[in-house]
């Protein structure tokens, strides 16, 4: 491994890394705009100029690979002069409109100005070049050409990652501007990433613009539930509301990127339709009630049915939107507490949903299909349940995170399951299935709970609670633990880490794993590789 000395510190750097990466390993920041580890190197911003001993000129750290014995100075007089110079150049034609810029607070121009420049402008305001502002370039991306530092990250992303090349740099010199080609718009499923990688306020997200100052936002690492890829994300939220998702680097799953479907998936979690109290059927409508009466009511119906018709008169449907812990808890409840074997899973994607592509998107829009399989749950089994209903054997159905009515259509649902005595639905929203249920239990959405999903590659990834669920909604494992207690008086774990521990004991795929030890990149199911 080559040894380099950066600012007097000797660093072992792997062969092939550049000086920015090598410095990072030692906690030394080399400021940069154009360099992005997921894109090719262009070396145009010149912000990362550093002094390399024996080189006559300053060198750009992004394009300088480590070599054994290299001695680098990132804080020498020459380096500091160059950093100040580049920032001064970048700012002469910049509009300095931070007070109305959404990037303010996470802007590399602001940050580096404070850290590396902090000198008064020598360029008169009235002489700045004028360029286009608030241009809707398509796919929810807004462009401000005056704020742009022309680092070409966005153009490289569309050239190298999506291969759609909708953005390019036009004109020359300080008239250069990023733009679309005449008559064309940005139109691809990953456009939002250019907003993330834009180091300044040139590219902003249409939906996020003017909604929230970024310094009010809290960041919680999580996993996108939009499809079975399960991209690592950060959830940005404030007072129980999500304002945006951004991809979180995970080399094993999504690299630096995420798709726009996933990115724009969060508004569905904070709709008016969110359930905030248990509901019970009262004639032709559902009325709210407390958890205690709701669970007493449900437990007595289940126990009655069990006594009258046997354990297999009770069945459950587990949607692949459920976490590993939720699925395990319900499976455990059915098999061990009630003794019923009638458990089906549903992994349904709406008609017309996007298919697999070469980058990230998967046709299966469920985040945990693989996790359900790893728990030994049947891949389908809905037909068997319907047969049992038809035969008069199945009387009570517990449905968790599966909108059966939407999936089957109302007519088909009624044909198959209309003869049930009783149906209880655990879900986040008042969906079509809830409308046909006798009882509805409100549960937390995935940014509101601890837990894990297993993606299609078999990688178990961790969810973190960003904020508590709304109203009386409970994490599903807590609701199931309370239901279990109502059924047999026994105590069950309701913390995700404890359910995970039980799961690791009981299920071969999870053996040896703990929720806490999953780490930011997640961990593979046990036994996945020899």
């Amino acid at each position: 491994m080559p040894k380099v000395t950066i600012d007097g510190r000797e660093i072992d750097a792997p062969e092939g890394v550049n000086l920015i990466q090598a410095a990072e390993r030692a906690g030394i920041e080399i400021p940069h705009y154009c360099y992005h580890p997921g894109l090719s190197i262009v070396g145009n911003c010149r912000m990362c100029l550093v002094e390399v001993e024996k080189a006559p000129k300053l060198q750009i750290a992004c394009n300088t690979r480590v070599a054994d014995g290299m001695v680098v100075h990132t804080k020498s007089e020459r380096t500091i002069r160059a950093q100040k110079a580049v920032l001064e150049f970048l700012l002469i034609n910049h509009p300095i409109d931070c007070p109305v810029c959404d990037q303010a607070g996470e802007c590399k121009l602001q940050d580096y100005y404070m850290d590396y420049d902090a000198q008064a402008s020598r360029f008169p305001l009235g002489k700045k070049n004028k360029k286009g502002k608030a241009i809707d370039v398509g796919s929810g991306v807004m462009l401000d050409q005056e704020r742009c530092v022309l680092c070409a990250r966005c153009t490289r992303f569309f050239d190298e990652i999506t291969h759609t090349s909708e953005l390019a740099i036009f004109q020359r010199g300080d008239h250069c501007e990023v733009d679309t080609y005449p008559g064309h718009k940005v139109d691809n499923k990953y456009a939002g990433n250019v907003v993330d990688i834009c180091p300044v306020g040139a590219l902003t997200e249409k939906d996020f613009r003017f909604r929230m100052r970024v310094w009010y936002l809290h960041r919680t690492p999580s996993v996108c539930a939009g499809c079975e890829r399960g991209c690592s994300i950060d959830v940005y939220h404030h007072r129980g509301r999500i304002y945006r998702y951004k991809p979180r680097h995970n080399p094993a799953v999504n690299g630096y990127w995420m798709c726009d479907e996933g990115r724009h998936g969060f508004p569905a979690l904070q709709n008016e339709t969110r359930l905030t109290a248990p509901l019970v059927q009262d004639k032709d409508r559902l009325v709210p009630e407390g958890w205690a009466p709701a669970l007493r009511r449900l437990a007595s119906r289940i126990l009655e049915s069990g006594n009258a018709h046997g354990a297999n008169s009770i069945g459950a449907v587990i949607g692949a939107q459920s976490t590993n812990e939720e699925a395990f808890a319900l499976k455990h409840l059915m098999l061990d507490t009630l003794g019923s074997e009638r458990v089906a899973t549903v992994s349904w994607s709406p008609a017309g949903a996007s298919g697999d592509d070469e980058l990230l998107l998967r046709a299966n829009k469920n985040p945990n299909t693989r996790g359900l399989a790893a728990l030994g749950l049947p891949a389908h089994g809905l037909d068997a349940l319907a047969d049992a209903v038809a035969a008069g054997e199945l009387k009570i159905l517990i449905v968790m995170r599966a909108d059966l009515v939407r999936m089957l259509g109302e007519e088909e649902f009624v044909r198959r399951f209309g003869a049930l005595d009783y149906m209880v639905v655990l879900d986040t929203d008042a969906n079509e299935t809830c409308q046909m249920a006798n009882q509805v239990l409100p549960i937390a959405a995935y940014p509101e709970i601890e837990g894990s999903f297993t993606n299609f590659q078999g990688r178990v990834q961790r969810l973190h609670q960003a904020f508590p669920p709304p109203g009386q909604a409970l994490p599903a494992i807590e609701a199931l633990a309370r239901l279990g207690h109502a059924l047999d008086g026994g105590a069950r774990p309701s913390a995700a880490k404890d359910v995970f521990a039980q799961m690791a004991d009981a299920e071969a795929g999870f053996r040896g794993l703990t929720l806490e030890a999953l780490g930011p990149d997640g961990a593979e199911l046990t036994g996945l590789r020899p």
Partner: protein
Amino acid sequence: MERILTRWLDIPDLRRLDVYEAHGGYKALRKALFDMKPEEIINEVKASNLRGRGGAAFPTGVKWSFIPKDSKKPVYVCCNADESEPGTFANRYQLENDPHGIIEGILITCRAVGAHTCYVYLRGEFNLQKRRLDEAIAEARAKGYVGPDVMGSGFGVEIYTHRGAGAYICGEETGLLESLEGKRAYPRNRPPFPAIQGAFGCPTVVNNVETLTNVPHIITRGADWYKSIGPEKSPGPKLFCLSGHVNKPGLYELPMGYPLKDLIYEVGGGILGGKKLKGVIPGGSSFPVFTAEEAVKVAMDFDSVRAAGSLMGTAGVMVMNEDTCMVDALKTIAHFYHHESCGQCTPCREGCGWIEKLLTDLEAGRGRMEDLEILIDAATNMEGNTVCVLADSLSMPVKSFVPKYRDEFEAHVRLGRCPFRDVHGEPAEKSHAAAAAAR
């Protein structure tokens, strides 16, 4: 002195293949193909001390020797005919009048580095020049000098001509390669150098037209003959593009090391209108200006000009007389580099525009004394910090004009107008017109 590079002045119709051959043309190619190994060609050119005429003065033979031997990828030769440096007009005459000299140079270079393809990148405005070169290539191909089997040697070379779309930066060797590949002419970061990764990712030699035309003469007459012309480390015949306030501007072939004073006063016939000399830019607009006192002491070869504080570049010698406003002259230079900066990297993109704006204000009498310091500072901050040397090409004039003619710059600030113009902004003296009338 014997004309070598401008033989067309002595030989009518030299551009025709029969005339060219009747005057010894393509003998060097025959020698290079049948009597010399590639290595020997490179060594001969190395020994001649031929240095690149495009502006950087890099030893040509050394450049060729960087091409990997036994490259698994094809090797390309690119002839840089994007002659765009202000004040430079040598290649255009060569293309018009001696295209076979260029073709022969290309073919020998291809043989030396093992290339079977050459691209000639011509500037967009070179319409006639491209036609002349294309005609010559067609003649040479018909005779079997260009094509799959050059002179029956079994060695094949194809030559393609490509016209740019009009950008100064396309003459920068890596910008040229990008443009050739069909992309925006953004210069590349080095390393890798073109000798390792040039056109289409393959080893490539990029040589200027004038450089290549020296090659056949070196092969025919030997390195020792070549070195005997001018100073040994910077030898050879040289094309000087003399322009500005001289009585006889034009293209002159002179030996390297020729005194600048004689170039202006003897060859160029002295200063227009009998005026006094104020300054000379010796190498095209990119390089530091010489004051009159400095100019008359300089010998025109790469090392002497460098030692005197400037660079010979393309030998585009621009002469300015006492009526020239040096602020205006520098403003014009800044306008050019601002217009031509490709905009890829920050210091050049922003710095060139900044400098032009400062100079526009100074020339218009709106400048401040502190602007002079800002000019120097901005120029210094650009220099050496960019992908290519375009930024240096403005930095060097700024950093020489401002201190050398500081009194003029200060006068603009003090007077609140250009001292060379009257209060209405008209030139104070119609010296050009008056001088022309007198002549």
